């Protein structure tokens, strides 16, 4: 007797593998990187920043002029083969000064963001983890700090510390960690009741270990995004202060102070203004694009 019921037909062997996981599993960070790579603007920003950084590091070495070499026979010159970006009122080469400005701006951005990340993450982490009265007191302090524009504190601190690159850094580091602290706190508050934190506690881990080894790594995505936006805001604050003439002091140059020096000759020698503001605009654009890309990659829920 022939079996005509095709319900019992042999299965195609390829169907058996349908349940198998055919691709390697992707971690959070690999997934984020995959999303980030797809963002063309963010990649563009990354490339621009890499180029600016390379020029800032190696450019001055390859340039025949120093940033304070005055040449009184060639003042206020337009861009030429000898001086790519022209010269300023004292005959100093603008190209090399813009490159030194890049060094100052980028290092201020990176150092301020790093220090702010450490302060903000620890502060917010402690407030969020311990909760109760600790949290209440610490967050009221943050509320007070956030109620006023941070540039006001920065200016006040600069007055006391003196006008140089170190005091700009200290002032920026002391005044702009509050945003990171708030984000870290809200992350830690939601994460601390997760099972793995409880498991860690049962295994005998100290509060500090649970916070640093278990909670903070899981809160890293939003923290990195907020720190990434601190870099352009630190660069902006430095440029703001230097543009007002209360930041970097002569003969040092930053993009803000170069723009400040160029104001009186805005109509007669506009190139002196053009190069520093082009450099800062390009950098700000790129950093913001990277930040947007990171936010979309690390925090897909936020994407609009």
């Amino acid at each position, binding site marked *: 007797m022939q079996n005509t019921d095709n319900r019992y037909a042999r299965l195609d062997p390829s169907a058996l593998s349908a349940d198998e996981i055919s691709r390697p599993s992707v971690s959070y960070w690999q997934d984020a990187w995959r999303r980030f790579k797809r963002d063309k603007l963010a990649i563009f920003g990354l490339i621009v920043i890499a180029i600016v950084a390379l020029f800032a590091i190696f450019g001055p070495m390859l340039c025949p002029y120093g940033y304070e070499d005055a040449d009184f026979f060639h003042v206020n010159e337009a861009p030429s083969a000898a001086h790519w970006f022209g010269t300023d009122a004292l005959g100093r080469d603008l190209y090399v000064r813009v490159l030194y400005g890049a060094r100052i701006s980028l290092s201020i951005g990176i150092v301020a963001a790093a220090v702010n990340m450490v302060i903000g993450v620890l502060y917010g982490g402690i407030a969020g983890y311990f909760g109760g009265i600790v949290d209440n007191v610490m967050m009221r302090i943050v509320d007070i700090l956030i109620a006023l524009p941070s540039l006001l504190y920065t200016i*006040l601190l600069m007055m006391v510390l003196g006008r140089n690159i170190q005091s700009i850094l200290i002032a920026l580091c002391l005044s702009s960690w509050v945003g990171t602290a708030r984000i870290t706190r809200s992350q830690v508050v939601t994460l601390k009741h997760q099972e793995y934190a409880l498991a860690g506690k049962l295994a005998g881990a100290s509060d500090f270990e649970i916070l640093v080894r278990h909670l903070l790594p899981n809160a890293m995505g939003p923290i990195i995004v907020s720190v990434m936006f601190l870099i352009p805001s630190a660069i902006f604050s430095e*440029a703001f202060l230097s543009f*007002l*003439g209360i930041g970097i002091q002569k003969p040092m140059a930053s993009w803000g102070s170069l*723009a400040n020096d160029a104001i009186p000759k*805005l109509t007669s020698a*506009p190139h002196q203004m053009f190069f520093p503001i082009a450099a800062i605009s390009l950098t700000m654009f790129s950093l913001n694009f990277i930040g947007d890309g990171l936010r979309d990659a690390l925090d897909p829920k936020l994407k609009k």
Partner: protein
Amino acid sequence: MGKYIFKRVISGLVTIVILITCCFFLMHAVPGSPFSKGEQGVPPEVMQRLNEKYGLDLPLHEQYIRYMSNILHGDLGISYKNTTVQVNDLVGRGFPVSARIGALAVVVSLLIGVALGIVSAVKRGSLFDGIAMVTATIGVCVPLFVISVLLLYLFAGVLKWLPTYGLSTWRHYILPVTCLSFSPIAYIARMTRSSMLEVMQQDYIRTARAKGVSEFFVICKHGLRNAILPVVTYLGTLIANLLTGSFIVERLFAIPGLGKYFVDSITARDYNIIMGVTIFLGIFVVTCNLIVDVAYGIIDPRVKMDE
């Protein structure tokens, strides 16, 4: 509601007291007496008399109490560089000018920003939307001083359409107000656009359309009223941004406002003026934030008052 407002007022007052305290001790941490700087050759007897006159020979805590009580009486002190200048006069002269420009900038940013955001959201994906959002990205990223310098160069330097400094006619207001409102417009437009897009997908919008309400009313009455809420929360930040922005714009356009006096006194290291103006600005910002918070509570009933 009353409890909420009371809490906000108390926290605002604490903020101001801490600001004054920090200012006072920071400025006293600066080495030397205010009169020893820049005035070489002042005989010791004169120094003595000056210190006595301004109470600088008193112990620190007595000076602090004195300064606090002066502020409570509305006296922000005098300039130590030029003792005929009172900080109150400076604020009285500079603040109305700054406030006029600032208020114009707030109005302009709100009107243009919200309008751009609505049109972009309604015509999502169109050429207008594309151009508006690219411009908004520029406005958000590029620092204020870059925009100000470019506008100054273009409209006052090359085209010579607008005056470069002073504030005598209405034409003088155009450039400073444009510079100040450029990046707020960008922020508000982006914010309005994204919240408008969200609101327009809600059920009540569909209901309104199904009832046959005209598209204009759907957008303006049902859509905008809900989409505008995030913009209201941004107002506090906006005022703080305009305040620091005024330092740059007033300096660049030589406008005799509070921002210019403040920057001048920083350059001249006139600590008492810096302190007085900072405290004034602090009180101003805290008050504005308080008003915005309370207004938000009234506009949006969903806000929990006890938080």
